[in-house]
Structures are given as C-alpha cells and as structure tokens.
C-alpha cells in the first residue's frame, strides 16, 4: 500500500535529482519513507536518494516497490505549480499510480521492477572533505562548461580549487578556507571529472544551500546535500577520468 500527499515542489526536487542520470527507476517504499539507488547506463555515476515520511504532508505505506518512468512522471508533475498539493496513490489491482493534482486525476502505468538491479555503494577511501555554498561551486562549473568537457578538483590544506583547461582557454576558481563552510584533509587530493555529469549533480542545489564534497586521488567523488527542507538526503557518486597515456 502507498498513499501520500505532498507539495509539488518536493516531487520536482526528486525529479531534478534523478532524471538527469536515469530514466527507469525503482523506488523502495517503506513505512518510514521512500528511497532509491540507481546507476546511469554508462555506469559512471550513481544516485542514492532518501526521503523521510515527514517530508510528506500525509504518508501511509507498507513495504513495496514502485517502478517509475521518470520522463513520464516529470511530464505529469510539470502540470502542477510549486505550491500545489499532489496526491499519490498506488492502485494494486491495475498496477498503476494514481496522481491527483487539484481536480485532475492522472493514472500512470508502472514499470515491472523484477530484474531491476540494487546497486551496491562501493567502499571508497576519500580522505578530503569540503563543505561549501552551492552558488560558489555553480559559478566555477558554469565557467568551465564553455572551456572544456572535464575539470580538475583539488583539495589542499588551506583551499579548494577547481581548474578546467581547453585548447586556448582556462578557468581557475580558488576558494580559501575561510570562504568554505568546512575543509578537512591531511594531504593534497586531486581528481578529474566530466563537467557534464558534475554540473547535473550540483544543479538541484539552490543558492547558498550547502554541498558536501568528498574526494581522493584519482578516485570517485562523493557529492551530498539535503532536499525537501532537510527531510530528504541525496548522495551522488561519480567515477573520475584518468588521463594516463
């Protein structure tokens, strides 16, 4: 059973987090909330999402799985404005999700979840941790997009650095410790990442909200932040580029 009532903006937040990476996903529903873990088709990035039941205005559920086509779901939720209340109900008899927005009733067919994998979170050794305002990072990433398709992130003892290099142009963003909310490392850590993926991962975080980044040397990056008024949590992993000749 699954029956919930929630502000449209919470659902829009979930869509922003998930749909840049994967289209067909499996939500795990429990009485405590909903969660999802999925890997993109290229096996380069992973998204892990948890939304507590108190992010919803009303929430009643037993343990179950919901297979959802995110593109379709997004096109339905797009019909609502941010403050609209959306009612979600699982119809067991027809295996559909009944979505009510105001007086609109939209019944959506679900995807079969058998055979959809439960990816494991790899055990990573990421010694450097930085917490910073989303807006600072977004500026650097947007600048890099015009220059290259990958960027280097470096955490030093006293600063955090973003660097991108194209054929003729470069971008450098250096944030000293006092501009960061937190910086914790024992040694210099540096890895390279695809800008395309990375910019999708920080896009859902608005304004001055904090983003947590953990990196190592030529290791994946771990990006974490909260959504749904801190009642939801997102973890992304992104595999690095390693340019050894």
């Amino acid at each position: 059973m699954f029956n919930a009532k929630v502000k449209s903006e919470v659902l829009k937040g979930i869509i922003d987090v998930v749909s840049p990476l994967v289209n067909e996903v499996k939500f795990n529903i429990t009485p405590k909330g909903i969660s999802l873990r999925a890997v993109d088709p290229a096996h380069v990035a992973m998204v892990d999402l948890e939304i507590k039941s108190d992010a919803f205005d009303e929430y009643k559920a037993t343990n179950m799985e919901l297979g959802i086509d995110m593109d379709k779901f997004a096109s339905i939720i797009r019909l609502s404005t941010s403050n609209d209340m959306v009612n979600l109900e699982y119809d067991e008899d027809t295996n559909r999700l009944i979505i009510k927005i105001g007086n609109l009733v939209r019944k959506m067919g679900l995807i079969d979840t058998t055979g959809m994998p439960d990816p494991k979170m790899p055990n990573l050794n990421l010694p450097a941790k930085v917490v910073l305002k989303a807006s600072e990072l977004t500026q650097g990433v947007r600048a890099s997009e015009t220059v290259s398709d990958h960027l280097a992130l470096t955490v030093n003892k006293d600063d955090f650095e973003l660097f991108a290099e194209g054929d003729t142009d470069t971008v450098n963003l250096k944030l000293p410790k006092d501009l960061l909310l937190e910086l914790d490392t024992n040694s210099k850590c540096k890895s390279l990442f695809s800008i395309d993926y990375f910019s999708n991962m920080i896009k859902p975080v608005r304004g001055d909200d904090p983003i947590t980044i953990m990196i190592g040397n030529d290791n994946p990056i771990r990006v974490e932040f909260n959504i749904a008024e801190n009642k939801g949590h997102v973890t992304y992993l992104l595999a690095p580029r390693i340019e050894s000749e």
Partner: protein
Amino acid sequence: MQITTSKNQSKLIKTPKKESFSLCALCRGTKFLCGKSRCPVIVRYHSRDKIKPLINTLKIGGASPPSVFIGRIGYPKVSIGPMIPPIMGDTSIIDTPELWLDKTLDDIVDFRSMLIRGKHTVDIYDVENSNKTVQFTRELALSKNSVFTEAIFSKKPQGNIAFYDEIQPHGPSAPIKKFDITNPKYEQHIEKAYYDTDLKSRDAVFNLYKDGLNISKIQRAFSVGAFGVKKFRKFVPTRWSITAVDSTISETLMKNTKTYPLINEYRVYQHNQFDNRWVILMMPTEWMYELIEAWYPNTTWNPYGGGISIFNSYEFYKGRNTYAEIGGCYYSARLAVNELLNKERRQAGVVILREAHPGYIMPIGVWNVRESVREALRNPYQKFDAIDKAMIYFSSIMDIPLQRWIKNSAVLKNKLFQKRLEDF
C-alpha cells in the same frame, strides 16, 4: 584562427598552417564564410560542358528518373521543379544513389550532369496549389518508375553542373514556363502515406523504411510535402529533407538499439570507396557514437590546405539536441550503423573514422557516406578482446597515427579515460 567558441565546436581541431582551408571544411560551400560571393571550391568544378549541345534549347523532353529538386535559397519562397535528362527509357539509376557504389566519380558526374533542373518559385506551404508545375512535381516525386516529362523553359538552361555537400550533383537549370508529364504510376506504399492526412510524417517515414523502400525514394516524397498531418505539410528543400529522413529513421532505430544487450567483442569493419578510407570500430559499451573525418590536402573540403584537417561530431547515450557540426553525413552514418545493430539486436558504442584521400576531388552527396558505411558493415569484421588491440589494428589500415585519432575523438577519450564505478 578562432572558428567559434561554442562548446561542441571547441572540439574542432585547429590546423597548423594557413587559415583558409579549415574555413572551407567548416563551410563546405554553403555559408560563404570566406566572404566571396561564389564558392571558389565549387566553381573549380564548373568546367564541364559535355552536354551543352543537348540542352541548348528552350524545350526538353525525356524520362525523369523520376527526380525533383526543391531549392533552399529564398526560403520560405523556394524554387521547386522536376529534373529531366534529355534521354528516354529507364533512367531510374540516375536518381537512385543506392545503386552507385560500383560507379566511378566520373560516371556519377556524367549521368547526373544530364539532369536539367526546372524551376518554379512557390511558397513552401503551398503544396496543394492547383498550378500544374506544383502538381506534376509532386506526382513525379511519388512515382515508382521513370516518367516521360516535357518542359518548356522561359530561358535556355544556364550554368554548369552544380555540386553540393549533401545533395547529389545535378546539371544546368532554367525557369519553367510549361510542364507536362504522362501517366505516372505511384509507388503504392508512398501513395498510401500520401493519402493518410492524419499520419504523422515521422511515422510515415519509418513505416516506409520498414516496408523496404530506398532512402532516396522516401526522401524525394518527403521533400514535396507528401507526408504528415494535412495542415503541416510543406515543401522541404532537398538538402534538408535528406538529413531529416536520415535523422528521423536513425532516431527510431536508436531507441531500439539502446534496449539491446551489448556485443561481446571489439569489432573493426573497413571499406574503401572513392578514395575514402572507412573504419568502423564497435565497442561492447552502451550506445555512443562519433564520426571523425580527416580531410587530406587537396580533397573536396580542404583544397588549399597544407595539412590534414580533422573534424568530429559525437553523442553519448543521452543523444544530442544540436545539429552536428560536421553536417548531414553524421546522420547518414548513424542510420547505417543502427541498421546493423537493429538487425543483430545488439547494442554497441560506435566510432567511425574516415580518411578522405586526394582522389576524392568533388562532393557527391551524403549518400556516399550512408552507402559506404553500409557496405563496410556488410563486409566481415575483425574481432578483438581488448580496445588496445582493436586500435592497433585500425591504425594499420589508416595513415593517420593512432594518437591523433584519439586526440580528436571524444568517444575514444571517454572509453580510455573515463572510469566506471565498478573500477573501484
């Protein structure tokens, strides 16, 4: 030289010496980037006048292959009309590029240069105009076989053979005064789509493709606005219609490709055509695709160059939503590789390498790309268990060193440098 700074085009590789030749490879005679009023590359080929005596007349009669041409200059008011050779009989080969792989460049130019293009200016939305030229042009485009056609021009046909990047070349042109055709017989599948005014053109095009029609036939009918929901029908310039059809069909095929299991090995296919050397690398990864073209000095789109110009366009699994930098050939080749993958019900990452050697002296249209890649994929392939071995093998076929291919390839770089989560 700064070509442009847009993100995708920043991948275009700057060439070391003079500047003008990169410009030509980007422009290919369409954008007049060099500032001249006529493209000097194209004019160079305007010297043939073998057929002049045959067409030095105001009246021409002959069997149209069938063939039509929709111009793009002046859009949305464009020149439409038939293409007529001054000969009789079954002329269908003249406008069926699918049959030209065993011809030489000279053969193709010879028979294409016989096609006289009649011109009649019309608004693109005016597909149902009662004007006879509009009607007969459409009927020609829907016809199955060669049709006897007569045209009276208001001026003698002007100009020499016209070459384009995407379109097959054709002969001189003249404004049409009067135009008549005898009893065309419609291609039945196309006729059905034509009379179905609720069928979307995307579906019409793909259904016809599944029915086994040649791309050139579908494209011809597409260009006269024969498909689609009635109120949206319009003339589509021939140049655009070719890429529209290639792109539409390959998009549908690609959707299937992305659901199939991966191939089990690295494959290298190869083919030589018109002094173009083709290598197709297939990798056991999710769908991604790239076409890299290397133009040698003194080839079609690199006539003044001192070095080889290399250009690429690519897409990853999610696809791309901007027009490919290298043009229509990107979509033609994408169609060809997806045909094979759909037939085998397999998914792969594909990189196509093309070396255009100096024997490729003139543009003959993107059909050359589509048919050459198709031909390569009909040949047996070499199998490898690792990408290194596959790359070493194809670099033995190609003249350009492997490192330069990698440097110019987004997909190869991704494959070699982008790690995956399971690597950790």
